[in-house]
């Protein structure tokens, strides 16, 4: 039986406060989450109904010039130099001025992600923990996304599609683990979109994927899809070949390579395809693959609901396509969140970390706070849910 109320909050309060620190990629997120004590959480499978309040959720993104990705060293430097400012701002926003009394637990991302940025944030977490004498909880980044999505949307037991810059996974819960049913065999979908954005040299602000989405909206030839490789392997998928192919198309377009008959008219040499068309076709193709593997997972676990999490999850077109598929299945429903909770943030780490904390799972030795670049979703024992 799951009892989320065994650990008492600090100072006899009737609520818990968690500070969440996230920095596994180019976003530094600081979030503060409050859980009231609820009698319904003493038993049953109610971890998606914590009545969580987001007291603050601040994010600062390390943005590079168009055509450039983010390097570990410079991203880590961004996190190191911004963390104190952001933590101060978050505490102020939440109305706290005595952290060692106000906060029950500090949650940080233990992995997966880029080593150097993860390491920077772990140092911040250890420092705050020692400074304020507050216990630490190391959180799996993917679990953070899932638990935030469940809490916000109240989806009880959905199939989860986790799509971001570093991950592409179809996940379903079974026997205390979030099990990976399908995933990418090479690059993540967000990475595929980001790298195409670099080829196009479009801005990385607010995010490369968002700018591709906007370009795709401007496509004038939506009835004429450009044929791209479609590489679904069972419940897995592969995207590196698609990226290489569409990159070559874009380069031919920029060079004005008239030999390419797909892009230029054979006789007149007139350009047939625009950058907007390429963006549209890339999105349609990649998202169709995602929908297919998600539907297959839904059929396997006999589920009718999908929760989309991760940075790519705020793409409206992906949500639309998923809704069409779910509508075709009986009583299907899509749950998704907006950019505040989809894109990496501190509140999601606080949410998942607080669930761990309430189940008594805290760091007992600083050795346990060593970060790890590889940390699969199904490695985490999900103690806060019923079998």
């Amino acid at each position, binding site marked *: 039986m799951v009892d989320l109320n065994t650990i008492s909050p600090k100072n006899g309060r009737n609520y818990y406060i968690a500070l969440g620190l996230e920095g596994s990629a180019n976003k530094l997120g600081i979030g503060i989450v409050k859980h009231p004590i609820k009698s319904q959480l003493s038993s049953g499978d109610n971890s998606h109904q914590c009545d969580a309040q987001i007291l603050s959720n601040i994010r600062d993104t390390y943005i590079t010039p168009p055509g450039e990705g983010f390097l570990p060293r*410079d991203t880590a430097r961004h996190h190191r130099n911004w963390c104190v400012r952001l933590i101060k701002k978050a505490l102020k926003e939440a109305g706290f001025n005595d952290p060692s009394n106000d906060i029950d637990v500090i949650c940080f991302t233990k992995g997966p992600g880029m080593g150097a940025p993860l390491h920077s944030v772990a140092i911040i977490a250890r420092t705050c923990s020692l400074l304020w004498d507050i216990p630490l909880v190391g959180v799996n980044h993917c679990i953070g996304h899932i638990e935030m999505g469940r809490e916000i949307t109240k989806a009880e037991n959905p199939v989860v599609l986790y799509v971001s810059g570093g991950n592409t996974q179809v996940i379903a819960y079974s026997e205390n683990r979030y099990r990976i049913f399908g995933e990418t065999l090479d690059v993540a979908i967000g990475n595929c979109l980001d790298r195409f954005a670099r080829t196009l040299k479009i801005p990385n602000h607010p995010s490369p994927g968002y700018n591709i989405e906007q370009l795709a909206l401007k496509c004038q030839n939506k009835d004429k899809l450009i044929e791209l490789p479609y590489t679904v392997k069972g419940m897995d998928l592969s995207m590196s070949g698609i990226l290489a192919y569409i990159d070559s198309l874009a380069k031919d377009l920029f060079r004005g390579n008239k030999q390419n008959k797909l892009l230029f008219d054979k006789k007149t040499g007139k350009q047939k395809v625009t950058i907007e068309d390429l963006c549209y076709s890339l999105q349609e193709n990649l998202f169709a693959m995602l929908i297919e593997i998600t539907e297959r997972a839904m059929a396997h676990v006999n589920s009718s609901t999908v929760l989309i999490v991760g940075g790519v999850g705020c793409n409206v077109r992906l949500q639309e396509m998923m809704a069409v598929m779910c509508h075709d299945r009986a009583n299907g429903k899509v749950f998704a969140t907006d950019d505040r909770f989809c894109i990496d943030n501190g509140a999601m780490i606080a949410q998942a970390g607080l669930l761990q904390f309430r189940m008594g799972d805290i760091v007992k030795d600083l050795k346990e706070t060593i970060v790890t670049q590889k940390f699969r979703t199904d490695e985490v024992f999900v103690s806060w849910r019923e079998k």
Partner: protein
Amino acid sequence: MSSPYAVYSSPQIPQKTFEVDPQNPRYQTTNGKTTGPSDYVLNAGQIDRDKPSDPKMDPSNSEVPTYLSKLRMELTGVQDDINEFLTKQMEVAKNKRVKVDTPKQKAKELNEFGEEEIEEDEAY
């Protein structure tokens, strides 16, 4: 108030201590020589908006930095010392490897390359 220091040791170097020299300007700034943005991103046109903040001065005496600011500046200098030392050590290691990598050695390594791979696989 004592200053921070760091100790390095390895089989070749039993002990090397990095200490703060309060007179040296290296330990009087929050902008380190080795902790700036990488040249690569600067060449790509990056504008550095992630600089560390300047030291805060004591409200009662604008000549003296606050305790934490002084610590930050001293750590920036020590970090520079460590980074430069480790970069030098990497160069030393690289030069050693060049010497060891004679053609004969390389041929031997190439021959054993496949065998090593199999061994690794078995370990899993």
